[in-house]
């Protein structure tokens, strides 16, 4: 009985670790651009069809660049 309890305890103590591992974004590697890097320039179209480039703001403003997953979702 003692043995059974011990093995049960062992099994359950491993559960949280494996569960956490399963939830990790295993297929998403670390971002290429990190703090301290120069942000690569881009030119993209906004919702009104205007072209917007990162270099438009160089020397003028900071840029808060917010990547989001999909339109029509929260955040």
């Amino acid at each position, binding site marked *: 009985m003692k043995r059974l309890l011990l093995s049960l305890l062992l099994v359950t103590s491993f559960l949280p670790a494996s569960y956490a591992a399963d939830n990790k*974004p295993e*297929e*998403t*590697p*670390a*971002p*290429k*651009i*990190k*703090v*301290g*890097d*120069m*942000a*690569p*320039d*881009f030119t*993209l*179209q*906004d*919702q*009104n*069809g*205007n072209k*917007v480039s*990162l*270099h438009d*703001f*160089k*020397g*003028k*403003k*900071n*840029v*808060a*660049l*917010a*990547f*989001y*997953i*999909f*339109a*029509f979702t*929260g*955040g």
Partner: protein
Amino acid sequence: MQAFQQNLAKLEAADTQVLGVSMDSRFSNQAWAEKIGVSFPLLSDWGGDVTKEYGLYNPKYKAARRVNYLIDKNGKVIEMQLDSEAIDPSKVVQACEARKLGR
């Protein structure tokens, strides 16, 4: 993006331009911007070239990860928040305000 819109006045006061980016089409972004009242640019990275250049492409969703960058006036990244950390923009707002004060 709603959270950035709510903080837009603070960010603009701290010399910061907000740009949203996703792999949605421009028309999807247009409809969404109208629906939720976003007044800053939502940029369409159709095809994902920019998303991939930044290393933010998530193959599982075939979309960008949720990431906030704060880029200074010289083009250097000074703040980054990933995934769930990137929902609340208050860290970005604080960093902008600190810079405005001449940290």
